[in-house]
């Protein structure tokens, strides 16, 4: 499992809030991809309603996961591949290491994959003395800088051209430049050598198909195709939810994925991988392994409230519209997955209590749901997580929130349970606000715990007469 730092949401968010460069980069990204995706959905020949069809399709697959996974594994094996079901991230990494050791692997090239970020595969391989090279340009930059991705599909979005130029000068020994084509060329040259000399390729899996027994990967740089065809051994790691029943489903889901992720009609490279190279075939590895990862997903599957999140196809469309993500960037979320999807999946995979701030640091605006190519109701699940935090839930190991908030809510529920209490409390509050500093008719400072409001905003005081009082007097 990768390191979990969800507790540091506030600190990391505060840091990012000062980073104007990050804000400009994310504003540009959202302007291009967020708005582009919306336009791309509208331009679908079937209409934007295709998202609802895709939702049904995904949920059907999730509801039949047991059969689909069994069928998938069976067919992959028939195609000459090997399948390993990993209960935990550690099991998955251990299996990959075992295969690597058996083949005396010295160097691994990786296609871009979030699930291997989730299980911290790179760190374990490096620890085992196996060089592991990220082959996606963004991921490569992040790896050279010894950082983690801050966006699901644009991992280095937080870095400037200048920073990347300096990084390449230092790590690749090229003269400094901040010219993107030159930098890309330099990375390409460095990576080409790695591709040609790697003994093993590791990739993720965008979707698998039970009907045909294959996995599908998409990329725009071709890095996944290189990683899965050049080396002798290819291991693909997939989250267990990424399976579909029919090949036909891929048509719809990949068209939506490309639109949601990058406002494209289709990704540049789409690879269908169903096993090792067969006799007579020119390309492909000698061995193909598929690692199907649980790592907490069964528990999500078992909870009807959160099952829907397994429908996610990790396109990052929700990151590209989220107003909170635009301000705090991806690192604040403290785990592989950031933005609205991270807000829901990270607590479920890594612990709800410690990810408290992820669940509460959202405005529930609903932009993520509108942007989701498979119409996942993220706000609903954020609310469900908040309910777990408020009341506690032994099934998820959640201990309830602090007594102060609970006390406030209990008091509130007493006040609103009768108009008499409500009016009486209103009177007291009106008296209380007389103690507050008022300037130009506005309250300038509120006492804790409400002082957050007046950090940057004034507040209009409570009205002298409530609407209720005015109604009784004037309109009844």
């Amino acid at each position, binding site marked *: 499992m990768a390191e979990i730092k969800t507790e540091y949401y*506030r600190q990391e*968010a*505060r840091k990012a*809030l000062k980073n104007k460069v990050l*804000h*400009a980069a994310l*504003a540009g990204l959202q302007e291009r991809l967020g708005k582009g995706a919306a336009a791309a959905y509208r331009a679908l020949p079937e209409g934007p309603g295709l998202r609802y069809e895709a939702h049904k399709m995904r949920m059907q697959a999730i509801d039949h996961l047991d059969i689909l996974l069994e069928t998938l594994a069976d067919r992959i094996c028939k195609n000459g591949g090997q399948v390993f079901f990993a209960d935990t991230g550690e099991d998955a990494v251990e299996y990959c290491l075992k295969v690597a050791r058996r083949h005396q692997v010295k160097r691994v090239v990786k296609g871009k994959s979030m699930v291997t970020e989730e299980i911290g595969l790179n760190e374990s391989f490096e620890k085992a003395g196996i060089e592991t090279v990220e082959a996606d340009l963004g991921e490569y930059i992040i790896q050279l800088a010894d950082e983690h991705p801050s966006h699901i599909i644009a991992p280095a979005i937080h870095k400037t051209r200048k920073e990347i130029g300096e990084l390449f000068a230092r790590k690749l020994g090229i003269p400094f430049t901040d010219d993107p084509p030159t930098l890309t060329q330099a990375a390409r040259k460095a990576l080409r050598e790695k591709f040609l000399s790697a003994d093993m390729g590791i990739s993720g899996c965008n979707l698998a198909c039970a009907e045909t027994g294959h996995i599908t990967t998409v990329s725009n740089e071709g890095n996944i195709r290189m990683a899965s065809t050049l080396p002798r051994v290819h291991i693909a790691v997939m989250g267990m939810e990424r399976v579909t029943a029919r090949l036909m489903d891929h048509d719809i889901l990949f068209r939506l994925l490309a639109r949601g992720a990058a406002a494209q009609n289709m990704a540049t490279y789409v690879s269908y991988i169903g096993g090792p190279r067969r006799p007579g075939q020119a390309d492909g590895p000698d061995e193909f392994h598929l690692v199907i990862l649980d790592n907490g997903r069964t528990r999500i599957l078992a909870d009807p409230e959160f099952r829907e999140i397994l429908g996610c196809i990790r396109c990052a469309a929700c990151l590209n519209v989220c*107003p*909170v993500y635009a*301000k*705090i960037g991806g690192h604040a979320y403290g785990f592989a997955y950031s933005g609205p999807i991270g807000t829901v999946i990270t607590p479920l995979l890594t612990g709800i209590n410690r990810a408290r701030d992820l669940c*509460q*640091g*959202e*405005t*529930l*605006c*609903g*932009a993520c*749901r*509108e942007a989701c190519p498979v119409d996942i109701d993220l706000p609903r699940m954020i*609310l469900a*997580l*908040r*309910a777990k*935090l*408020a*009341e506690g839930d032994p099934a998820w190991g959640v201990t309830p*929130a602090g007594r102060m*908030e*609970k006390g406030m*809510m209990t008091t*509130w*529920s007493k006040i*609103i*349970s*009768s*108009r008499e209490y409500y009016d009486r409390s*209103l009177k007291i509050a009106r008296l209380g606000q007389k103690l507050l500093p008022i300037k*130009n*008719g*506005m309250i300038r400072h509120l006492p804790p715990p409400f002082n*957050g*409001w007046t*950090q*940057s*905003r*004034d*507040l*209009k*005081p*409570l*009205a002298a*007469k*409530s*609407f*209720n009082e005015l*109604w009784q007097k004037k*309109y*009844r």
Partner: protein
Amino acid sequence: MTAPKPITLFIPCLVDTFFPEVGEAVVRIFQRMGISLSYPSDQTCCGQPAYNSGYRNEALIAATRFIDIFENAETIVCPSGSCVHMVRHHYLELFRNENSYLKRAEKIGAKTFELTEYLVDILQVTDLGAEFNGRITYHDSCHLRYGLEISEQPRRLIEKVHGCRLVEMDESGRCCGFGGSFAVKYPEISTAMLEDKIKSIITLGAGTVVGGDMGCLMNISGMLNRRRQPIEVLHIAQLLASRQPSAKAEGLGFKGPRGQVTEPDKPFLEPLPPGILESFGDVNNQTKVFAPTCRSFGAGR
């Protein structure tokens, strides 16, 4: 057309306690249309604050009370998108394990309408004879736009207000950073989001911001006031009830600094000459056009 049904008013607690003038504006709108109104005076809150914080048991107390009070109403109208979203959508989630209340909640949800939705979709009126002078911009509150999918209706109503001009701000549908307790619990993030909203309002040079949810408007006006920006903030009910060319005359809304209501009839920034758009390259929306110009004002990104 059959005579409109009598309306039962659902006045959100925020309007009741902080902004009763918004409730009064709603009353005036329907009284002028000759529609009979009632207001159950024991109503308090729909339960949204507790629900959004995860306190479902507490929210249930408010929700059952709401259903008991409003159940016999023929039509319920409310000047808030988020409260209607709560009643129409979240009640179903809240009562999903309580069958008897679930059915009642479904019925209530189907007859509870947000103000602009009720006027445009049900009563099918857009011209209420309102008058207001000035440039107006409309902020799409999230629960109205995403929760209830209401964004056309308020615009159609504003366009029919005599004397005013609707100008669209950049990303009117982007969250203002209110989010209920979020604004208090995560003030720094909320402030950063609000600053973007304020920036697009100021850049536009509109004298008045109109919206349909007092939470967002309280947030927006709170920062405008703090920063001494002479921009007025109005609930759409106040605009639609206005029969005076200037809001000041009816004593509506927030006052600018030192109590004056300023309405610049010219935008802060002059519109750009035609053709300049193309010179910026791939530009297709207003902010980008404004961005190079307003940098000299310190308002650019």
